[in-house]
């Protein structure tokens, strides 16, 4: 890579910089994202960039091939351990009789009473995301099941723009080494899947005001 290349990137950045700055000034640069962008699309996130050839048949609307492993061919990312509490895992320790699943929407009284849906709750129920017959996995709208360390694919079904940004490292966060091995934090490391609004934080101490410096 040479200096010319660098300069091109810089010019690119500068040109957009000006534009972004003026946009920021004229719009008041409201960082709150437009809510209107949520559409409950059912196909996997990214119609433009998704490598369709890599998707399992069911996600392409084709009948599943029984010889295929469900996720074998799809794109996966290195992620840290999903933040599921230890006392809840495995789910199948309690959810062991798929025949007896209660599919009705209701207020849970016996278990999981701390889980209250604040996530498009009028249109959603637990079993839209959790698999009714195998509680240790999630399922996509297509019926394909995925493990909890791929939950980004579930979120990506409806939040395609964020999923796209996450895949290239713009939304969310990577840990590890900038020059080598990385891990991608799952969406659920930052957003509770049941109540995903990012919770406010207590700020750490402000700097000492010059007046107070002895």
């Amino acid at each position: 890579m040479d200096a010319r290349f660098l300069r091109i990137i810089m010019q690119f950045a500068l040109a957009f910089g000006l534009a972004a700055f003026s946009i920021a000034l004229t719009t008041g640069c409201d960082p709150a994202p437009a809510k209107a962008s949520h559409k409950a699309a059912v196909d996997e996130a990214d119609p433009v960039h998704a490598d369709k050839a890599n998707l399992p048949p069911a996600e392409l609307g084709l009948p599943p091939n029984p010889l295929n492993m469900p996720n074998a061919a799809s794109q996966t990312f290195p992620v840290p351990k999903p933040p599921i509490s230890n006392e809840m895992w495995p789910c199948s320790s309690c959810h062991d009789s798929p025949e007896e699943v209660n599919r009705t929407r209701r207020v849970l009284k016996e278990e999981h009473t701390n889980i209250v849906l604040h996530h498009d709750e009028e249109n959603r129920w637990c079993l839209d995301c959790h698999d009714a017959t195998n509680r240790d996995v999630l399922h996509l709208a297509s019926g394909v099941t995925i493990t909890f360390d791929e939950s980004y694919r579930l979120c990506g079904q409806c939040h395609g723009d964020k999923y796209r940004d996450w895949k290239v490292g713009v939304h969310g966060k990577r840990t590890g080494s900038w020059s080598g091995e990385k891990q991608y934090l799952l969406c659920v490391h930052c957003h509770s899947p049941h109540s995903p609004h990012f919770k406010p934080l207590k700020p750490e101490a402000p700097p000492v005001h010059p007046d107070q410096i002895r």
Partner: protein
Amino acid sequence: MSCCSPELPEVPTEIPDVEGPLPTTKRGLGDLSLTRREFSKHTAIVASFLSAAACSTDSMDGFVKSRLREMDRNELKDLISSLERKYKKRFNKDVQVRATPAAEGVRFAYALDLSRCVGCRRCVHACVKENNQSRPNPDGDHNNPIQWIRVLEMNKEEGVDLAHATPYYNPEEVPREGKFYMPVQCQQCENPPCTKVCPVQATWKEPDGIVVVDYEWCIGCRYCMVACPYGARRFNWAEPYLPADQVNPNMHVMGNRPRLKGVVEKCTFCIQRSRNGRYPACVEICPVGARKFGNLLDPKSEIRSVLENKRVFILKEDLNTQPRFFYFYGI
């Protein structure tokens, strides 16, 4: 040499470029550096004094150590082991001082997502811990807490408006309604005005783009602080206060090793981490993932993703400082 320029710089761009080849004379450090620093401490920023201070060192050759920038590998090795011994004694624990050089094909850059940042200041304090900044001194008369990152709170309505920004906000919870937050730290300019005004070339840009300070060579004149349009440099007005139990023992000679009274310091993209493949501490701590860091020359880096997918802007573009620190709205 601009070291005898009689005036404080006002317009950075008019300062002659003194970044060419450096004189090769070896100069003394050791206690001498203290003398030089004391010297300027007891004077106001008066140029005649400064030039006297800077030039007086010329006549004091013959000391063992040389300036960091001119050292060869053996000299660096000697310096490192003497520093390690010194710090070990001072803090009573093992300390590793490195001098990892810039890697070939690496140009560091940084990007910050203003639509994610919530102003929680986790970065500010992680930076202080990682980089051994002076802490608030509980009982000293010379309180000198130093922070390299400043998080500014601004009104969404007004957009980026540095004149009406405050770093002192302290509500129960952030983000506050109607506000947004803009952390500012050294912008690691490609064309840094700060290095050009240093009368003794104690600060310069490394090949990977990190602007560093030679703490032993700095005479404390603070020209660089005046020249920096981002207010990103800090001065040790008092003896830095760094309790032994708070020392980060993983150090770099041009980074987080303990500073002296009377020297200038600044963000180095955590040179002790970044030159060893790690993300800077502020990137690692950020709970919202607003901070992106990487190699501008690596097409697969997060930083390139940001530049290619988002509209970025830089602070005070008109000054032609060409920051390697970008801001963007991830939305």
